[in-house]
C-alpha cells in the first residue's frame, strides 16, 4: 500500500471503563457493549504489528487506561518498539509511585485533562469530584520529569475562562496546552444543546488563545481547536479515513476513528482474528471512505477534497443518517442548515441539564 495510506499513530483504547462521567465523552454512547476483550499479549502483538506498518506514535487511552493492571507491561513493550508513548489519563485512580514506575519503564509523555479552572464547575462536567486530584497528578507528572500536556475540552460553560486556563497551565509548567473545542459526536451530541457556544463566545476565546500562543512560543505549545460548527469548511477528520490513524477499541476492533464502529453497514474486523496489516490494507471498512470514489457532490468536484477529505463520516451520519454525504459542517453541504439551526439554538439556549455518561440501558432519563 502506498505512503498515501501510512498509519503514524495508533490509538489504543485499552478499556472503556472510567470513573468519570464526562458529558462530552468521545466513547460511543453504547460503550458498555464493548468490554475489555484484549489481554496483554494481544495488545503487545497489536503494537508490534502497528509499528511494522509505520506507526511511531502510540496513545494509551480509554476510558481510563490506568484501570488496566497490565499498563506497566504495555508501556514496557511499547518502549521496546521505540514507539513515542503518550498516556492520556484523568489521573484517577493513580498513585505517585505507579506514575514513577511508568517513567522508569520509558513512558514519554503524560496528558492530563481538566474540565475547568475551579473544582465545582470542573466536577460538574466530569460528573465526579475529580478536579483537585487531577491537579495533584499534573504536578507529579512534572516533578517526575515527564513532559505534561494539559487538555481542556471547551464549551459554552468554560469558554469564558481561557485566560484562567492558560494561567493554570503556566503554573503547572505544562509543555503543551490543548484547548480543544467539543466535537459534537457521541456523548457531546447527546448534550449539544447544553454545550454548544455562541460565535461571540468563541471569537473572544480564540483571541485570548492566540495572544497566549504568541507570548508562550518556545515555552508552551498552545493549541486551539475550532469547533467545526463555526468553521467554514469541515475538519480533515483523523487526517482522512484510514490514512494516518488506527484506533483499536477495548474489544479489539480496528477502526479508522473513535466512533466508526457506531456507523451502520460497515463491518470492522477484530485484531484477534487477523493481522493488522491485512485489516489496514484490505478490509472493506478501512477502504470504504478512502480516496475519492465514494465522494458525492459537492465534494467530488471540490478543490478542497484533498484537504479535508469530505470531513467527518460520523458527523455526516449522526446529522443526516447517511455516512456517505458531505459533512454538514461544510458551508457547501446541502445539509448545512442543520448546523445553522444548532448555532441559532445556541443564541437562545441558557445552558441546561446534562445527560451524564452511563450505560444507557440503566441510566437513560
Amino acid at each position, binding site marked *: 500500500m502506498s*505512503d498515501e495510506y*501510512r498509519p*503514524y499513530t495508533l490509538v489504543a483504547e485499552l478499556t472503556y471503563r472510567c470513573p468519570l462521567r464526562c458529558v462530552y465523552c468521545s466513547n460511543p454512547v453504547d460503550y458498555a457493549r464493548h468490554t475489555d476483550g484484549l489481554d496483554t499479549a494481544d495488545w503487545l502483538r497489536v503494537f508490534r504489528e502497528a509499528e511494522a506498518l*509505520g506507526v*511511531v*506514535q502510540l496513545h494509551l487511552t480509554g476510558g481510563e487506561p490506568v484501570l488496566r493492571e497490565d499498563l506497566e507491561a504495555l508501556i514496557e513493550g511499547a518502549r521496546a518498539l*521505540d514507539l*513515542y508513548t*503518550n498516556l492520556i489519563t484523568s489521573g484517577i485512580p493513580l498513585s505517585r509511585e505507579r506514575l514513577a514506575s511508568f517513567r522508569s519503564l520509558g513512558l*514519554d*509523555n503524560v*496528558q492530563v485533562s481538566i474540565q475547568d479552572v475551579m473544582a465545582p464547575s470542573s466536577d460538574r462536567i466530569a460528573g465526579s469530584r475529580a478536579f483537585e486530584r487531577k491537579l495533584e497528578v499534573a504536578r507529579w507528572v512534572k516533578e517526575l*520529569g*515527564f*513532559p505534561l*500536556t494539559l487538555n481542556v475540552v471547551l464549551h459554552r460553560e468554560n469558554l469564558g475562562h481561557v485566560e484562567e486556563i492558560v494561567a493554570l497551565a503556566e503554573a503547572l509548567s505544562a*509543555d*503543551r496546552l490543548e484547548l480543544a473545542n467539543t466535537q459534537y459526536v457521541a456523548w457531546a451530541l447527546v448534550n449539544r444543546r447544553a454545550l454548544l457556544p455562541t460565535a461571540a463566545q468563541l471569537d473572544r476565546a480564540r483571541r485570548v488563545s492566540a495572544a497566549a500562543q504568541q507570548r508562550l*512560543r*518556545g*515555552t*508552551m*505549545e498552545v493549541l486551539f481547536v475550532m469547533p467545526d460548527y463555526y468553521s467554514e469548511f469541515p475538519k480533515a477528520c483523523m487526517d482522512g479515513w484510514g490514512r494516518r490513524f488506527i484506533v483499536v477499541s477495548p474489544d479489539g476492533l480496528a477502526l479508522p476513528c473513535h466512533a466508526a464502529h457506531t456507523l451502520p453497514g460497515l463491518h470492522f474486523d477484530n485484531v484477534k482474528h487477523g493481522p493488522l496489516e491485512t485489516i489496514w490494507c484490505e478490509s472493506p471498512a478501512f477502504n470504504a471512505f478512502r480516496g475519492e470514489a465514494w465522494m458525492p457532490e459537492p465534494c467530488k468536484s471540490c478543490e478542497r477534497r484533498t484537504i479535508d477529505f469530505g470531513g467527518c463520516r460520523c458527523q455526516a451520519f449522526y446529522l443526516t443518517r447517511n455516512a456517505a454525504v458531505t459533512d454538514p459542517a461544510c458551508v457547501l453541504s446541502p445539509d448545512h442548515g442543520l448546523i445553522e439551526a444548532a448555532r441559532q439554538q445556541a443564541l437562545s439556549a441558557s445552558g441546561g441539564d446534562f445527560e451524564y455518561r452511563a450505560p444507557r440501558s440503566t441510566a437513560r432519563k
Partner: protein
Amino acid sequence: MIALDSRPRLAAKARIRFDRKTARYLLLYPERGLVLNPTAADIATLCTGEHTVHAIVERLAEKYAPQPRAQVEHDVMSFLATLAERGLMQTDP
C-alpha cells in the same frame, strides 16, 4: 539568536528515532514529528548539552567538506532556531 558558545540540548519531550519506511530520522514529540534531513539529523544528535553550537558547526563542516563553513553555520543556526521556536530545544550556558 542562539549564542555560538551555548550548549543546545533537546527538550525532554523530544526523541529521535529512525524510520525504516523512509530511511530518515524522525524527531518525535507529543502528537507530532519532524522528518529530519541528514544534516538536521546530525545536528539533532549532537544536541546533548555537551557540545557548543560552535563545536557542532566545526563537526559538521568537517563532515560535509568542501561545503563552505558559512553555509554549514547558517544551516545549523536555522535548524536550531526551528527547534527553539517549537520548544524542542533548551540551551545550557
